[in-house]
């Protein structure tokens, strides 16, 4: 079953994913953690993938760079960067893409940066991998990248180790690392989750600002609808390894369709003083033991008998607004 990837017809996707399947060999035997995942993103656009822990959003992000952990494998689908299916490339060709065409910003910069190498060395290393330049030129480029992310005193910071920087500065360094070779696509996996709120604001501002200036395509993975509201152009909501809803950010926040999306929004306490929160009862089912029908059905307040039996298709419910739900036929 091919799920449609929404993309305004006038724009050409830089990155597109079709029917991606990811499987994991685990304690309970192999099981699928991401199914029928399709997405597309164009230059200058920010696509947010939102969902709670374990929904498969990070796996999807890693798959885009073919960086899945050893126990996981891509079991099907296509990932195309500028039309080239990277799943068909050999090792070195993929390595050439990483950092050059598509770069990644990780969640926790303290662990994602090598603790025993200076910031500058780590950035320069990327540059030298992809460009034939001298060591000093690479270092100059690293300092430039640090300037780009508005790192204060970049020359000095380049000579420091990750632990010597504050959380916010580390994340700036991480971003500088990703931008060092001007990639067309940036994948950011929860880039602000580990940060304090004032710093988060700065980093989100920086990311938005940089994208505007560099015109890259961006995929941002987050669990925080607040972040989504701040930066997304389009949004994919994931639940239990599948897309449940996809729409432009305005459509999604104005008229959420899927009960899970609605539940998430109701559960956020922000600006709801003393009002009782609408929680989603129950817990996410384990991926190796998914219910037969709609994975959300057991927790869904409006679930019908059909929901428990048959999985709803992911379809366009309103123009440009897709969802997978039997009970909603809003047109």
């Amino acid at each position, binding site marked *: 079953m091919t799920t449609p990837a929404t993309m305004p017809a006038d724009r050409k996707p830089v990155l597109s994913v079709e029917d991606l399947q990811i499987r994991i060999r685990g304690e309970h035997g192999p099981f699928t953690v991401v199914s029928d995942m399709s997405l597309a993103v164009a230059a200058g656009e920010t696509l947010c993938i939102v969902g709670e822990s374990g929904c498969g959003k990070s796996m999807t992000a890693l798959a885009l*760079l073919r*960086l899945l952990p050893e126990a996981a494998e891509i079991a099907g689908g296509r990932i195309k960067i500028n039309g080239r299916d990277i799943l068909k490339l050999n090792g070195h060709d993929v390595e050439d893409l990483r950092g050059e065409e598509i770069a990644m910003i990780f969640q926790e910069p303290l662990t994602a940066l090598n603790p025993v190498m200076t910031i500058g060395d780590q950035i320069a290393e990327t540059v030298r991998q992809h460009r034939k330049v001298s060591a000093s030129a690479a270092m100059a480029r690293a300092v430039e990248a640090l300037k780009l992310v508005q790192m204060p005193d970049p020359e000095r910071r380049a000579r420091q180790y990750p632990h010597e920087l504050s959380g916010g500065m580390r994340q700036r360094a991480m971003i500088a690392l990703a931008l060092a070779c001007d990639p067309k696509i940036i994948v950011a996996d929860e880039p602000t989750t580990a940060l304090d709120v004032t710093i988060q604001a700065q980093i989100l501002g920086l990311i938005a600002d940089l994208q505007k200036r560099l015109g890259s395509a961006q995929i941002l993975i987050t669990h925080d609808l607040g972040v989504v509201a701040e930066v997304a152009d389009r949004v994919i909501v994931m639940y239990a390894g599948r897309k449940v809803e996809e729409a432009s950010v305005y459509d999604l926040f104005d008229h959420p369709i899927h009960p899970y999306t609605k539940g998430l929004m109701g559960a956020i306490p922000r600006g709801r003083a003393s009002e009782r929160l609408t929680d989603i009862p129950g817990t996410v089912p384990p991926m190796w033991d998914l219910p037969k029908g709609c994975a959300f059905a057991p927790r869904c307040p409006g679930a019908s008998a059909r929901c428990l039996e048959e999985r709803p298709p992911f379809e366009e419910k309103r123009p440009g607004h897709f969802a997978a739900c039997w009970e909603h036929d809003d047109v």
Partner: protein
Amino acid sequence: MIAYIIRRLLLFIPMAVGMVVVTFGLLLIIPGDPASVLLGQEASPEAIERLRDSLGLNDPWYVRLWDYFANLLSGDFGTSIFQNQPVATIILGRLGATLELAVAALVIATVLGLAMGVISAMRQGSIVDTVTMIFAQLGVSMPVYWLGLLLMLAFAVQLGWLPAIGRGPPLPEAFWAALTGKPQVLMDSLSHLLLPALALSAMPAAIISRLTRTSMLEMLREDFVRTAYAKGLRRPRVIIRHVLRNALLPVLSVIGLRFGMLLGGAVLTESIFAWPGLGQLTITAISQRDLPLIQGIVLTFALIFALVNLIVDLLYAAVDPRVRLG
């Protein structure tokens, strides 16, 4: 930094005092005394008693302990009862041999252990990994003296390739000789060193290889390794620059710890290969109840142990910028 080193060295003092007291206490209650050993079977009880008097063995223990510490403070480690020489001279004469053996074993163990560990981790689950880890298991399971004897039997006795026992010219001298045109001196020195060092290195090599493997596998799962791949780096570069360097950190502290144990293991190895080092001296000193000498040896071991730990910590700080010594 300097303050750190000074503090660490100051901490050594209570440890050394404690070790002297423990050793002293043990020697006090160990049956047998140097006088009777010194005078041999044919000595009369009166002669033994007279010698005990003149050695001060009949003084109360606190007087003896006090005297020992008083002498220590003035830099006097005492005089060996049996060798009529200052303890410091005797120990210094032997220390080189033991350090040579221990360092050689450590170098072999480190090189071998790291190589095996890295190869194993890179080929996790393969035949190479399995075979390497079986060797590592055997390495930690084999009594060092048994391995020593087997090696001696095979390479010295049966094959006759290497000398069975003893020490050639001291290695530093031998290196100098080789540089000044006498390579056979170096060969002689190395040929004597090879078997005992090999026997002594088996256990630490096995431990290092296993630890390196575990540590490598752990590091391979670290986020920054994923970052390195995400940057587009080639695998060898990721392994060497990112994985190995970080994986070495825990290995480093174990190497230091092992060095202390190597010195202990040298006791057995030295007695099998007739290596004229501290280990053999220890056995002799204990069997002769040569108190000042035993005390001196214990202090030497303690000092080496403390110094090695200090060096490892300093190295650690040098390799890992996160560790700040202050």
